[in-house]
């Protein structure tokens, strides 16, 4: 029984069903609209919430690293198109974030209610470091103190505060979570 369940899980994880794809598409659309129209209008201590990142992390926590990485790539590319940003920049950041958030879900115990908060906090930190590195390479620089105080810390606080609400929303849209840890499958 357990073995059959494990094999079903494996099959589902490699190829999402049509319904699942539609739900992921709806989330992608929501992430795009929230990130390009709502987020820029909310500025707290100079930072805006990163709805795209929170939704990518939530999807990755519920569906694993592969879906997380693909969802991150698509979200990043669409956000790049809509905001006329250099294409590939947000995609690269969100692929990495989606992948590692998924790996976190596949290796750690997510039953604790703080798991989405930890995931989003760590993802925000990783995304900001990656983004700052890319900007440095593109010769857009920022004083370290300003980056920490006005970019990193406010986004860490904002994103973490929003994490639970969005995680529950994404969980609701996707129709619940999955067993992602290998040791729990068998």
């Amino acid at each position, binding site marked *: 029984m357990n073995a059959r369940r494990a094999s079903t899980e*494996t099959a589902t994880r*490699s190829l999402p069903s049509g319904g699942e794809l539609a739900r992921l598409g709806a989330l992608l659309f929501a992430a*795009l*609209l929230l*990130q*390009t*129209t*709502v*987020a*820029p*209008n*909310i*500025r707290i201590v*100079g*930072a*805006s919430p*990163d709805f795209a990142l929170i939704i990518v992390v939530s999807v990755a926590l519920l569906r694993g*690293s*592969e879906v997380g*990485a*693909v969802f*991150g*790539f698509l979200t*990043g*590319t*669409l956000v*790049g*198109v*809509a*905001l*006329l*940003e*250099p*294409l*590939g*920049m947000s*995609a*690269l950041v969100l*692929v*990495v974030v989606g*992948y590692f958030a998924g790996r976190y879900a596949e290796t750690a115990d997510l039953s604790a209610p703080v798991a989405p908060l930890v995931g989003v906090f760590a993802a925000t930190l990783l995304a900001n470091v990656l*983004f700052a590195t890319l*900007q440095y390479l593109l010769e*857009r*620089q*920022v*004083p370290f103190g*300003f980056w920490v105080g*006005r*970019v990193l810390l406010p986004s860490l606080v904002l994103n973490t505060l929003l994490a639970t609400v969005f995680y529950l929303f994404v969980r609701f849209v996707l129709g619940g979570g999955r067993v992602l840890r*290998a040791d729990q499958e068998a």
Partner: protein
Amino acid sequence: MNRRRVLQRRLVAAVLVLLSLGLLTLYFREADNGLVHRVQDGALRVVTPLQEGSARAIEPFRDGWNWIADLFGAKAENERLKKEVEVLRAAVAEELTTQAENDELRALLEMQRGRIYPDDVGFVPARVIARSTTAWYSTVTIDVGRDDGVQQFDAVVNGQGLVGRIESVKASACQVQLITDQQSYVDAMVVPGQAEGLVAGSVTGSVSLQFVAKSEEVKAGQFVVTSGRQGSIFVRGIPIGQVESVGAQEVELYQSITVRPAVDFRKLDIVMVVRR
């Protein structure tokens, strides 16, 4: 089985990372009519109406949010404005003493009457449909593009003053680099007066007037406008802001002048592209 899945997982991530890096490299290396730019152009045609609709829907909420934020800053703003009025009154009294200064004031008056733009320039009205969400970029997307005759480097203004310039143009939309962007530089001059320099943005959002020699007399409260000198993409006299503070350190060649922009970038909604 497990090993295969691990390999597959890593392969997916690696391919996507390479794809992103490839997109990024192509984007910077190719010309504006290259493949990636054209794909972005095409995709933007689909996304723009969605953004327009969402931007309109969210407008009342944004105004409400700004209203609340303004309430918190109203008292401090009031005090600052009172001080500024005093400074301006003193400056105007001084300027009225000589004929040359009168001429300068007349020019200022013309600017305020809106006689800034030559007859041969055209205006394309546009709505802001998206804004950059990171501190690294101060850009907005507007809903006009190549199809409306907009070109790269056209100036963008609103009723308050200079907003920025067109950075990249697509068929149905374009990106405006605001004067607060850290890579924005605008030829500017101080009026009344002769001081000229470059207005530069910064990642912190503050705007400064750079390369003004120490010999030039610049005072808080004076206006900063585009100089429109030969080669500049902006016509002469577009208001940029007001001098907020002036400082100079002995070791520096130039004065350090901070400028308070005329435009309230938080409330940017309708703008005009100045087509030359």
